[in-house]
């Protein structure tokens, strides 16, 4: 029995920390094969590039922790920023007013998802598959698929730095910290994790499952629009590709960060940071090696596959651990 216990511990250890060794190996590999990989400039720009993804992934993490998915986040980012861009271009709104309205728009679009899921009781995946197409469609109609250039102030924001680090990186870090706090230390945050353990159980415990779900979709929508703003500011214009596919990368990132797709599991910090960082690390590293840009898609797919398998394997092994301790009672 002793020996068996130790095996379990080893498994636990691998699942808990094994991942960090993998990341470490990746870093070592790239830093040896690509000379400027570990340069300050590169690391700085690596974070710069991943800041929209960090923010969107945080929202996605909340949805996933409740045991659901929101695959419309990229389209929310697109539609809400389109509206912001149009407000500035056609109605002469100031960037700060536009900024605010974009965020409100994101919350609203998230609320639409939440409404359909909670009140019409449509499966979240189906719901957001619908809005994924619909929201982008509305955006394309509104802009007639033209690109809209940003005013200078906004573009300056996209490349502004504070203490040598890009402003949007600071923003992303602030978002991560605040949402980590919300997740770990507020009633709402704990109920998000509780929901992922099973809604029936939560109902019996008197948790307002509907409100928590609704709020979570709003939160994810809001964060998606914030991510969209940063992305738009970085590019300098509103493009039809903005946010496209970002939701799937976000799902991959958070699973890599140990947030289980089965719900109820994982943390914002370090989870989201680690996951997004890893994906960006590999993209950036392959870039430095001068690899075929299409190779990244393939590698990315492979990573997602491995991460998902590990997630499934983990919950299977957990089941085993449980039974063993049952017997020891």
């Amino acid at each position, binding site marked *: 029995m002793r020996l*068996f216990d130790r095996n379990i511990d080893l498994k636990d250890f691998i699942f808990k920390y094994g991942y960090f060794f993998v990341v470490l190996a990746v870093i070592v590999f790239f830093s040896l094969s690509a000379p400027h990989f570990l340069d300050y400039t590169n690391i700085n720009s690596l974070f710069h590039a991943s800041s929209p993804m960090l923010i969107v992934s945080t929202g996605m993490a909340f949805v996933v922790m409740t045991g659901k998915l929101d695959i419309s986040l990229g389209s929310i980012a697109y539609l809400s920023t389109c509206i912001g861009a149009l407000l500035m271009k056609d109605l002469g709104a100031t960037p700060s007013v536009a900024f605010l309205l974009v965020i409100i728009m994101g919350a609203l679009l998230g609320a639409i998802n939440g409404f359909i899921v909670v009140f019409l009781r449509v499966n979240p995946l189906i719901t957001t598959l619908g809005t994924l197409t619909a929201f982008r469609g509305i955006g394309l109609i509104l802009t007639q698929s033209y690109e809209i250039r940003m005013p200078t102030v906004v573009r300056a924001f996209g490349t502004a730095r504070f203490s040598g680090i890009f402003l949007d990186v600071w923003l992303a870090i602030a978002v991560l910290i605040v949402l980590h706090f919300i997740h770990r*230390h*507020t*009633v709402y945050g*704990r*109920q998000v*994790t*509780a929901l*992922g*353990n*099973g809604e029936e*159980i*939560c*109902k*019996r*415990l*008197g*948790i307002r499952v509907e409100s928590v779900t609704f709020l979570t979709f709003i939160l994810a929508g809001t964060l998606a629009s914030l991510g969209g703003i940063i992305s738009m500011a970085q590019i300098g214009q509103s493009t039809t590709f903005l946010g496209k596919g970002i939701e799937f990368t976000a799902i991959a990132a958070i699973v890599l960060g140990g947030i289980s797709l089965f719900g*109820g*599991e994982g943390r914002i910090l370090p989870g989201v940071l680690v996951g997004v960082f890893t994906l960006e690390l590999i993209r950036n590293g392959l870039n430095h090696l001068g690899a075929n840009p299409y190779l990244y898609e393939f590698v990315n797919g492979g990573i997602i596959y491995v991460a998902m398998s590990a997630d499934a394997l983990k919950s299977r092994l*957990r089941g*085993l*651990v*449980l*039974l*063993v*301790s*049952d*017997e*020891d*009672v």
Partner: protein
Amino acid sequence: METPYLKMKSVEKSFPGVKALSNVNVEAYAGEALALLGANGSGKSTLMNILGGVIAADSGKISINERIASIKSPMDAAIHGIAFVHQEMALLPTMTVMENMFISHFPLKAKLKIDRKEMRNQCAKVLERLGCHISPENIVRDLGTGERQMVEIGRALLGNNKIFIFDEPTSSLCKQEKEKLISVIEKLKKDGLVVIYITHFLNEVFEMCERVSVLRGGEVVGNSRIEDISMDALVRMMVGDIHIEDRGSAREGSRSEVILEVKNLNRKGVLKNIAFSLHKGEILGLWGLLGSGRTEIARSLVGLDPVDSIALRYAENGELVRMTQDMARKRIGIITEERRVDGLFLSMSVKRNMSMAFLPGMKKKNSASVDIALEDSLCDQFIDRLNIKVSSKDQTVGTLSGGNQQKVIIGRWLEVNPSILIMDEPTRGLDVSAKAEIARIIVRLAEEGTSIILISSEIDEMMSLCDRFLVLNKGNLIGDFTYGVSKEKLVGIAAGSESVHVGGNGK
């Protein structure tokens, strides 16, 4: 006479196809424990779920402390000081012990931040009171069943609750934990609170309850003070008049040829070196408490659960032949525990449900298509034979009553006609007459030569149906008895009070 603290008056509740509660009146007094008794499916859980706000009654009144209480949600119940310790535990496995206890009322600092320190302190105090040696920071997933039950009980003890509902709290507790719980309940009573205690263990009722209410088939058949009633009278009340007649002796089954031999069945942490044989036409009962491994054995035989090792031999032309679980699956039918979850296709018709396991056998000759005429006639035949009450064979299974649903599943297997049929809780949640009917079908099948492995939590049903009993305790096969063994012996051994070696009296 003092007035009851809690009064449930004329409570009615129907589920589609079954009347769960009719005109139920129950009263509980402060400083006393009320035992709520009844066979499985008698409506006691439904009644308590109404009190706990989990489901809504169709009609009826609840008054607490002489005031009408409207309980529409678990939140309302909590406001009225009702704490519910659920039988199937309402725990959040990925979260810590303290989070599980406080999930519906976290202590807050500055109205926003959860006060972890406060939470940890209170939680530790409750655990201490329960004599439970786990840390508030433990993840519930990593706990054993007994410890989990303690977390569930601990949650009820937090806060200012007045009415405590314990739904079979001791079934997964070890002896020390049980004693601790009893002393906690004594303390609750001393503090003038109301305890409602649901259990199957009658001795516990006499040990710590003041009053008893007995439910049968959704009706209250007795309210009494405990000193005014005997254990025999209680049992009679619970079981009622409809009783499957005692047979007097075991049927031929257990002395006939062996049809299946199981050896070396192991699954780490669940089953330990299980070996037994099954005779032709025998009803073999697997008896043990929840989690003893009885269901796992049944599922292992047909490969539904993974095993570390298993050796199966099956009689073919009078000789025992080695076979794999896959081969076993073709010869063994299994009726699983949760018919609505993994037994039936609820939205499909009776006919489709029945033919589901036998589709390959219904193929037209030299064709891939199903012989509809054969399907219809087989279905009609078994609806008739099993006396299934349906409007037509195209009726949706989900709209049938529990007993008829169960018969559809049995009919499904009769079409296949396996030589071995495993039945896991075939009468759970059925009313008394449906139970008796299923029991008759089981006996008839055995008489026709089908070997049956029966699992049931109801000892009386097991006693009257089984020719032989295998008793399990924590994954070990600890007893093998033939018909005629006393009820007390079976219950005692399964609960681990007596130690017996395999073959105690059977062989």
